[in-house]
């Protein structure tokens, strides 16, 4: 008997002990790729099973945007005049796209937290000691986060419809708007993965909020940058979240959006920004995340 053979256990089926793990040894690139995709899907299934077994976690994650919708629409909304037609006028239509964009933007914290927790709980080590595709740990996270983001969007859209929001554009425009939102979320998944791998423990990941909050709010999410003091308005206008928020306002044909002279060049290029910003973010953070992942074995 060779030292490389697996030790069969008495209860084990004969085929199991003898079969080498497929897709690992001298297999072709194609077969390794196929197995990597299957491993990715196994991780996605695992994540989706979490949701199915514990819908309450999902509800908690959505609690924040729901509270924000209600607060901004009913508490602050009545005092805001964003359309120039009087306080409260058209604010739901203005704020809802902002809400969508911010939910996507804040999603990077969920990703980062989940990655850090995986690392902390020893899952990352177990996965990496297994003959599965190492990339699946990360790609599986990404795919399940996108699925979750789509569910989040659908839920918030439901709430939005209840409080009186309507998408004014065509069906194609509406779908394009949701596509841009998921595009932003996708880019931020890599930011989340990078940060999650960088961060030491989940307590630190919890405090990402302190960074995310100003990043989310200094934008056109809840108020037009034109209404802010000069430098702050410029920062807000150039915030990638603003581009996505403004672009989907156009696609939803939000009343008052895109009217009047934009004060900042980027304001006039919302659609372009909404496509380019996430691509730029990925160009930076995909390599960073890959390097950080490889650094795990240092």
């Amino acid at each position, binding site marked *: 008997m060779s030292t490389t053979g*697996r030790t069969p256990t008495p209860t084990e*089926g004969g085929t199991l002990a003898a079969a080498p*793990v497929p897709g690992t040894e001298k297999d072709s690139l194609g077969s390794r790729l196929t197995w990597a995709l299957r491993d990715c899907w196994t991780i996605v299934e695992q994540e989706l099973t979490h949701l199915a077994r514990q819908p309450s976690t999902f509800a908690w994650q959505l609690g924040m945007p729901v509270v924000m919708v209600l607060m901004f629409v009913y508490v602050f909304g009545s005092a805001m005049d964003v359309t120039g037609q009087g306080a409260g006028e058209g604010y739901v239509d203005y704020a809802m796209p902002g809400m969508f964009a911010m939910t996507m933007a804040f999603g990077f914290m969920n990703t980062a937290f989940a990655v850090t927790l995986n690392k902390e709980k020893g899952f990352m*080590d*177990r996965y*990496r000691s*297994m003959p599965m595709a190492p990339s699946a740990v990360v790609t599986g996270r990404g795919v399940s986060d996108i699925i979750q983001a789509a569910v989040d969007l659908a839920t918030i859209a439901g709430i939005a419809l209840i409080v009186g929001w309507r998408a004014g554009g065509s069906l194609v425009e509406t779908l394009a708007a949701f596509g841009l939102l998921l595009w932003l979320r996708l880019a931020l998944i890599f930011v989340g993965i990078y940060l999650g791998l960088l961060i030491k423990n989940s307590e630190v990941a919890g405090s990402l909020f302190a960074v995310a909050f100003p990043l989310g709010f200094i934008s056109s999410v809840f108020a037009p940058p034109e209404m802010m003091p000069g430098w702050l308005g410029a920062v807000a206008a150039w915030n990638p979240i603003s581009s996505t928020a403004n672009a989907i306002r156009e696609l939803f044909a939000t009343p008052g959006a895109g009217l009047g002279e934009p004060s900042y060049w980027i304001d006039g290029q919302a659609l372009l920004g909404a496509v380019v910003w996430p691509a730029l973010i990925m160009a930076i953070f995909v390599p960073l995340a890959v390097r950080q992942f490889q650094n795990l074995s240092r």
Partner: protein
Amino acid sequence: MNPSELTVRTRGLTKRYGAKLALDGVDLSVPRGTVHGLLGPNGAGKTTTVRILATLTRSDAGEASVAGYDVRTQPRQVRSSIGLVGQQTAIDDKLSARQNLTTFGRLFRLDRASARRRADELLEIFGLQESSGRSPKTFSGGMRRRLDLAASMILAPAVLFLDEPTTGLDPAGRREVWQAVRELAAQGTTVLMTTHYLDEADQLCDRISVIDHGRNFIEDTPAGLKRRIGDERLEVAVADPDALSGVADLVAGVTGLEVTVDREAGRTSVAVPDGVAALTAVASRIQAEQIEISDIGLRRPTLDEAFLHLTSEATR
């Protein structure tokens, strides 16, 4: 021994973290089908050694092979031959015990039916079938660790790495895990395990490597190691400090050995070759002379004392 009979073999394994030399030349030879212990204090380099062997961390220098494969150049083959139970329990509390095992089975690239079949077999082997539908969150520490073990056994690996498998468990939990490890070893799995506890190494291991400051300086059987660590100590404590020297004289008289006196603790202590005989003799003499004592007992050297002793022996 023929090197090809060694399931785990390292030569001069070295690992540096910044300025810290975590491993400073670890040499291990673990024959197939044996249980090998890595015994050492905190920060000795046990986890680092296991992580390198499990392909999680790259070494800076030295060689390491597992099941005949080089950990640096053939990590994928190594991963197909090992199971790892890390220092933390890596099981998913949001899935049921059974779902944990089927998910890991799928990631070991079994098809759905085989993954389910293997999960059921393992639940039975590790005595978890009655709790298979529950979340591991509701499990005792011992049950969680057994599920963790089961997850690392999905492919019946040639080598199983266990990093402190019983840390944090109560005595019942430790016994459960010990029993599981014994059964796996009996079926021929080679086990490399780390531990802080001499008694655990004694219970499970065929051979023990004592490791400290990134170097393994002694390798021996549990019995040989205990011999080296030295004899049991007979300790007698008194409540009245004035009685201490009288007791020390008595113990010295009965045993004929050199007695150390700790005045602050009010205790005398003596290393005795035959603990039970010395205890009986001293106790009956104390009773006969009607001396008042607060405590009497036999004590093994603590691991700290043992390490001091072994380190000084190794450097002598």
